[in-house]
């Protein structure tokens, strides 16, 4: 857009002046089309729209014929309101200032300009191609709904609305991004969410100053207000059922146009271990699986460090026969254990990143090549010990057993940190590092809710959804309220 053009803030009654201004503003935007027309009362007018994001069928079959038939004259008064009455496809809102009108135009609306009218009517003709609803890739479940959000905001909200047929489901729309003007929706259940919490979420959302919001991930640090932690303080999900469940718990959901991931907040550490599967299966299965996830998280974070601490610093604590095997396996390895672990951890992360970026069809192949071929070759070449391969394979598999990507990506940081601690001080260092991580986690909060609630805050009545997945008749009678957890802070 030209910066030299005069910047009238308001739309003038003169079509010529308006067009002149628009032409200047849209210089270089070759996708915008100016289509002149005359109404039945012979008033000249202009349709301005982008051929890329406009439903042209709707335009030519509904909008234009209606305009051609328009018989009103400006002299008779009540002009804009009367026009809106005759053009039912127009939204309530008309624009009198250019900035808003230009945003609407960029968003796919068609601006209707009429000579003699100091307003412009945006026709909702936006049509952007987006993919359909597909299976969830990042949070697959065996049993339960399979659909995931898409990049388009309205279908996402429509799914939520369809699943929660209740006027208490409130959806607030706002625009974020000073340049991108992205639509953002805040969804919550009135009556379940704490008013103070809602006010806080709104305050934080409105305080976001970003040129552009392309993904909900842009918002997490603003919402969590704490960037200096490896722990995810806001949960993201692409599953509608998780959003519904979170709203029932009194949490808010933030959805962003262009992102298939909704943000759920406030979030505690334990939320990341809950998978919809838990709730769709029996109480026993759900509980056991949840414990296995906790175990997997601990293994993913601690196993390499523990291996290092036990073999290098505290071999006394290993059974003798195990020590035989370890000692025999490591005999020809030329590098110290810590270097061996770091090489393998880094290699593992490179494999993971590579497999992720590659096309779907060859990604798994790379994983297999990396794990089997390279691992086997490294062992036979004597660079690393076979036990190390087992340890790292177990670590990697444990990482994949963590149900949410948010947690999965951060557990690696702890894995490295604990290895460094162990490499200096053995088991003592490991415990020191683990305590530091635990203390740090306990000091965090997500919108005022302690991050380790309800465990660290000792609200033992709510442990029923942390350490066990309580049977439905027990959970169903009283959905967990964040209210109780907030007691810890406020």
């Amino acid at each position, binding site marked *: 857009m030209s910066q030299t053009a005069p910047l009238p803030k308001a739309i003038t009654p003169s079509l010529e002046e308006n067009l002149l201004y628009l032409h200047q503003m849209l210089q270089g935007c070759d996708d915008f089309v100016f289509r002149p027309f005359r109404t039945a009362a012979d008033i000249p007018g202009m349709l301005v729209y982008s051929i890329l994001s406009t439903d042209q069928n709707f335009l030519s079959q509904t909008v234009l014929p209606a305009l051609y038939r328009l018989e009103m004259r400006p002299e008779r008064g009540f002009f804009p309101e009367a026009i809106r009455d005759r053009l039912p496809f127009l939204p309530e809102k008309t624009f009198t200032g250019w900035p808003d009108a230009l945003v609407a135009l960029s968003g796919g609306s068609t601006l209707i300009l009429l000579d003699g009218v100091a307003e412009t009517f945006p026709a909702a003709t936006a049509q952007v191609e987006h993919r359909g609803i597909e299976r969830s890739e990042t949070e697959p479940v065996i049993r339960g709904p399979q659909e995931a959000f898409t990049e388009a905001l309205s279908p996402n909200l429509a799914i939520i609305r369809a699943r929660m047929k209740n006027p208490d489901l409130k959806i607030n729309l706002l625009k974020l991004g000073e340049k991108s003007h992205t639509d953002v929706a805040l969804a919550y259940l009135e009556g379940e969410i704490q008013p103070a919490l809602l006010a806080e979420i709104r305050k934080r959302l409105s305080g976001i100053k970003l040129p552009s919001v392309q993904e909900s991930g842009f918002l997490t640090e603003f919402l969590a207000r704490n960037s200096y932690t490896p722990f995810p303080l806001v949960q993201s999900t692409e599953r509608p059922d998780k959003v519904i469940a979170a709203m029932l718990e009194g949490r808010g959901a933030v959805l962003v146009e262009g992102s298939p991931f909704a943000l759920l907040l406030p979030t505690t550490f334990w939320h990341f271990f809950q998978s919809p599967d838990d709730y769709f299966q029996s109480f026993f299965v759900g509980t056991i699986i949840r414990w296995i996830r906790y175990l997997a998280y601990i293994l993913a974070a601690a196993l390499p460090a523990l291996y290092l601490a036990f073999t*290098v610093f505290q071999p006394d604590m290993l059974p003798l026969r195990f*020590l035989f095997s370890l000692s*025999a396996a490591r005999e020809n390895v030329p590098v110290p254990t810590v270097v061996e672990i770091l090489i393998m951890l880094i290699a593992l992360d490179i494999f993971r990143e590579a497999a992720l970026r590659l096309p779907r069809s060859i990604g798994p192949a790379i994983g297999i090549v990396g794990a089997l071929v390279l691992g086997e070759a490294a062992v036979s070449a004597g660079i690393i010990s076979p036990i190390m391969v087992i340890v790292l394979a177990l670590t990697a598999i444990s990482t994949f057993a963590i149900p949410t990507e948010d947690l999965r990506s951060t557990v690696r940081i702890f894995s490295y940190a604990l290895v460094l601690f162990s490499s*200096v001080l053995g088991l003592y260092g490991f415990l020191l590092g683990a305590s530091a991580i635990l203390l740090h986690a306990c000091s965090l909060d997500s919108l005022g809710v302690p991050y380790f609630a309800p465990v660290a805050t000792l609200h033992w009545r709510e442990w029923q959804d942390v350490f066990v997945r309580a049977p439905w008749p027990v959970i169903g009678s009283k959905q967990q309220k964040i209210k109780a957890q907030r007691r810890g802070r406020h």
Partner: protein
Amino acid sequence: MRFLRGHRVLPVILLCVLLLIPGCWSGHELTDQLIVLGVGLDKVGDQVRLTIQGIRPEAAISTASSPSGSGGSEQPPFSLVAAKGDSVQEALQKITRRVPRFIYGGHNQVFFIGESLAREGIMPYLDLFARSQWSQEAAWVVIARGGTGQELLTTTNLVAKYPSMGLAETVRAHQVDIPTLFQFLLHYHEDSGAQILVSAAAVKNQTAPPGYQMEQLRLQPNAIFQGDKLKGYLDDSDGEAYAWLKYGFQGTRFSFPVSALPGAPVLGVSLSSAPAEFRILSTPDLGVGVEVNCNFSVTEDIPSPLNSPAAIRALENRLDQTLSQRFSLLFAHLQADQADVFNLAEKVHAYHLALWEKDKGRWPEVYAQLPVEITVNCHFRHSGVMSKYPGFKE
């Protein structure tokens, strides 16, 4: 640097301080360590000879990769390193200089003590191991009966590649209780100062056919220690009786003649009990009561059917008598040696302080004169697996 402001800097400082506290940055790679499985201590001339049995990982690799056996390697899978010195410390230093590895004793299984050194007193030589990071809780102290510790470290075993591990297997299989270094130290500081350690000798199984006469360790709880010095050995029968009293009958198999008549048939039983209870009697004179309550089941064929309460009671009485005789004999020998291995001194000290204060200076003599009253109560529990006895008509 907002996050370094105020209270947030405190945890960081604390963490750094904690890192500096331990002062031990003592990591050792497994490949830099010689994992010690057994230690032999012997007296050679005026010096002490320290022998260390460590595993050879490369041998472990070759046996692990080829299941057929030693993987072509003729050498045993362990290495023996020995050095002499005026003290154990000196000998250990010599070994450390000779072996290019850190000597790691955290998994040491056993201290084999040569008999000559044991007779001289073992405390000065075990002190180093008791103080340092050598495993005290788990490592046994075993006396090499009539031999040296080094010999025992080379005794091969049917069940294990490593002699020291073979000992562990044997112990597990035979339910022998061997005092560890820690237990030895505990008893060493007790009032009586006497204890029984396990002795071992490498013996060939003479009754096996030629070619199969493997040399094996024979373990017996019979080395009488007064303080840290070996005084002598109990005979086989006494050693067995001692273990029964000390540790209880742990499913012990025992055969005894069913009557005192010559040529009476022998019955096999399996006994189980808690360790014996010792009570100090003080009325009118100091004495000791030993009570053994045990259950037994018949494990071998029964010569006469146990079909009446009277028959069972007769059998119980017979077993009571047999065991009482064994225990009496044991006490007679122990008192003759003035070896208070059950630490009765402590019981007197605890329950009869006045008597103890009077007699503690001459406790060994008092102990030797102590009247011992042995009560054995055996209870028949199970007649074996057969529901019908041959020849018994219902």
